[in-house]
């Protein structure tokens, strides 16, 4: 039988809206939702269909038999697996207290469910992957604007100029945003791109700054200087909504474009020419404050500087600028119900909220658990449940993490595939793939807010379950089932929708429920109350940072230069993989089976490395090394080497991904401790590695 459903892609965390056709429980067609994306989809999105029949994923619950990581599994029923986990959790709760259990997830619109579970269990220790992703950007925005990373959406389509600092959007795809950017460029808009290497986004740019690694902040300061010097800022907006502008003017004095150019290794006149363009294009110039900015020691301040640039443009709540997302309330509609349980009043084990008071308490900071677990300070952690989160792939130094995990009596991975962490766990609960599972309804805020839902396109082909059922079942066994007031997904959906007056059939038409026909914009002269800072204004000098003893305007410090033979390790994404998540997908591994290491032509020549040679990349002060092919190019800064993240996986059952390419996080030995005290994120681009031509390059033909 033929079927068509609207759903939400799950190949990466962008979650594009899709429409899926199936016949006899086989997916035959996936496209971007025609009403929102006119069919557009990326390679990963289409390769989703290959996920379903992939037998190299867990097909029923597994309980470990041998040593951790040895890969000996006993296939068990769901009842056995649930009982096993619940019994262990009960014992741990009795002996060590509920707070000794951590639950980590990737984050996203459904994290309320996971949070509810762990909070209801009695532990405050919910965390997510964001310390290796957007935490710096999030905290930067909170400190200045009083709203987090999602506190603005970018109206790129109507902008005149988009400025991206290392936000490689044409490889780290978000289809709606990509389409907007293309449309803007087609209309003659400009794109300025800043990175240490050339990327697909750089190719599409109208201006490209190839900067020295770690100098983004310097470039942003140089831009601020020139914009203030030439009085190109929106003085009325600043007067009305911003505090700390005078302090900024004093601070910026020495950071001239000439200084910035020298620091970044670019030409002064290209900075002034850029600002000349800004003069013409303002106020519709968007400085993207970054997505994954867990990179350099001052990335938090770089992100703050980018926010300051937006404020100088005065581009808040206008067409072609930064728009405050609207929710159901703005449309005169009641919001949906969501699973929720208040956080228990116990100190978090990562120190967030009591030791580190200036961070968002929501998900805390995952990396801060690790050393605390090893030291059993402030209390022992005895179980870690990873909900589609792979700390061993996301966080640096899995070896060190294992020392912490070895302190646990229970490690559980709930995931659609074998994660590196899952392989080390005691129990794997296989979640159904996104094409085989339903999820709760979520609100998508924006200028035109809507409700969205993922609906399964086909029934699970293996003995896998959706997460709403997994958490319900575990909750029942732990006597916290009342927090999950449903037995079927239909009951959950109805319960969520009840206050809104909508029903599930309202999704049938387009796959989403639009809460408004028109774009909703607030009155720009009356934005009071939108900036949730202590003063209610946009704070260039942040009270919160002050209270934490941190500067709001950090004097610039030049990044460390790698010593001889060493390189700064820089990572990124390609358009065909979503980090470690997709490396083993048959259709995607066919396109990109392994990563290569980019190295500058001149640096490579000095080391006798030719394009395509095998090279050894060696972690600093450790014996870990990986061998991989070199991509020799002039389009990367000589101080850096670059690789796509997610490769170098060590799960034998994933035959396509097994030891294919190398892993950046395994090269970051000791780097769990290198994190941003102001922004909270890990400094993932502060690791240095040695590179040499590998002895494995064939010298002779030796065959018989």
């Amino acid at each position, binding site marked *: 039988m033929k079927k068509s459903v609207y759903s939400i892609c799950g190949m990466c965390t962008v979650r594009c809206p899709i429409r899926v056709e199936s016949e006899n429980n086989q997916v035959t067609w996936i496209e971007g939702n025609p009403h929102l994306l006119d069919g*557009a989809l*990326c390679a990963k999105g289409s390769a989703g269909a290959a996920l379903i029949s992939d037998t190299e994923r867990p097909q029923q619950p597994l309980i470990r038999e041998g040593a951790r990581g040895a890969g000996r599994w006993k296939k068990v029923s769901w009842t056995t697996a649930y009982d096993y986990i619940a019994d262990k959790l009960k014992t741990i709760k009795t002996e060590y207290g509920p707070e000794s259990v951590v639950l980590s997830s990737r984050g996203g619109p459904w994290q309320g469910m996971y949070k509810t579970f762990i909070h209801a269990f009695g532990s405050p220790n919910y965390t997510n992957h964001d310390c290796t992703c957007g935490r710096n950007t999030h905290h930067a925005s909170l400190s200045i604007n009083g709203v987090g990373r999602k506190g603005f959406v970018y109206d790129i389509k109507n902008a005149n100029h988009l400025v991206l600092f290392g936000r490689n959007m044409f490889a780290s795809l978000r289809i709606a945003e*990509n*389409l907007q950017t293309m449309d803007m460029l087609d209309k003659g808009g400009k794109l300025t791109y800043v990175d240490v290497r050339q990327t697909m986004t750089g190719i*599409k740019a109208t201006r490209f700054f190839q900067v020295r690694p770690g100098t983004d902040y310097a470039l942003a300061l140089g831009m601020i200087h020139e914009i203030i010097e030439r009085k190109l800022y929106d003085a009325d907006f600043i007067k009305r909504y911003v505090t700390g502008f005078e302090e900024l003017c004093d601070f910026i004095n020495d950071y001239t474009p000439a200084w910035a150019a020298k620091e970044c290794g670019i030409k002064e006149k290209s900075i002034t020419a850029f600002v000349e363009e800004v003069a013409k294009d303002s106020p519709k110039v968007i400085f993207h404050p970054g997505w994954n900015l867990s990179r350099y020691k001052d990335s938090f301040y770089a992100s703050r500087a980018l926010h300051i640039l937006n404020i100088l443009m005065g581009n808040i709540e206008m067409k072609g600028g930064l728009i405050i997302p609207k929710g159901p309330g703005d449309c005169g509609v009641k919001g949906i119900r969501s699973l929720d349980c208040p956080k228990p009043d116990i100190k978090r084990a990562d120190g967030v909220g009591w030791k580190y008071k200036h961070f968002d308490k929501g998900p805390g900071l995952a990396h801060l658990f690790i050393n605390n677990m090893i030291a059993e300070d402030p209390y022992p952690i005895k179980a870690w449940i990873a909900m589609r989160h792979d700390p061993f792939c996301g966080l640096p130094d899995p070896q060190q993490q294992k020392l912490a995990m070895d302190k646990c009596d229970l490690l559980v991975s709930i995931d659609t595939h074998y994660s590196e962490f899952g392989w080390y766990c005691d129990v794997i609960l296989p979640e159904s793939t996104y094409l085989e599972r339903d999820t709760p309804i979520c609100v998508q805020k924006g200028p035109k807010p809507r409700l969205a839902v993922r609906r399964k396109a086909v029934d699970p082909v293996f003995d896998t379950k959706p997460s709403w059922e997994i958490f319900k079942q575990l909750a029942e066994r732990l006597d916290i089932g009342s927090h999950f007031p449903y037995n079927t997904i239909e009951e959950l959906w109805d319960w969520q929708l009840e206050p809104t007056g909508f029903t599930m059939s309202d999704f049938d038409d387009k796959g989403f429920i639009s809460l408004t026909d028109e774009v909703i914009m607030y009155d720009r002269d009356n934005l009071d109350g939108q900036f949730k800072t202590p003063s209610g204004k946009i704070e260039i000098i942040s009270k919160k940072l002050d209270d934490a003893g941190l500067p709001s305007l950090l004097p610039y410090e030049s990044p460390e230069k790698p010593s001889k033979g060493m390189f700064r390790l820089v990572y990124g994404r390609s358009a*065909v993989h979503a980090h470690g998540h997709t490396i083993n997908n048959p*259709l995607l591994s066919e*396109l990109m089976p392994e990563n290569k290491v980019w190295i500058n032509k001149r640096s490579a020549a000095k080391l006798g490395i030719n394009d395509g040679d095998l090279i050894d990349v060696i972690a600093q002060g450790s014996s870990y090394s990986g061998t991989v092919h070199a991509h020799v190019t002039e*389009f990367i800064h000589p101080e850096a080497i670059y690789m796509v993240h997610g490769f170098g996986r060590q799960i034998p059952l994933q035959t396509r991904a097994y030891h294919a390419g190398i892993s950046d996080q395994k090269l970051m030995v000791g780097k769990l401790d290198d994190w941003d005290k102001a922004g909270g994120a890990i400094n993932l681009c502060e690791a240095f590695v040695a590179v040499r031509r590998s002895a494995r390059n064939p010298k002779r033909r030796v065959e018989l």
Partner: protein
Amino acid sequence: MNKYMIHLNTKRCIGCHGCEVHCKANKGLPVGPILCEIDHKPLKSIRGVPKTEFSFRSCYHCDDPFCVPICPTGAMQKREDGIVFVDFDTCIGCMACQGACPWQIPQHNPETNKAVKCDYCMDRVDQGLKPACVSKCTTHALKFVTLEEM
């Protein structure tokens, strides 16, 4: 006379290889055959911005195809509207077509042991739909063009 062609707007193309997977997924192809290909020239710096040109190639659906006459069973055929396609019922997988094509366009499908090649998604086109690669191109860079009858 060829009625159709696929045009790539290289300004919009981001070399994401989506089209290649859209094509494979639509035809349910296993690892191995890839029916269209996105390629680009080596990067060249133009006024400080490294640039390149992308190209998209599927099958040329030649006016006078080499692959059709060589086929021993008549499986490789050219339609009235110019589409060159494989009739899977008669294809024996000898791959003579691949050898005859100057660009080795026809590919071997290891699952069916038959030749497979771009057929402009004629099943979709006949239903008034666009080919898979065009419909789902990430940035709408591909266009399916119907040429006017002369």
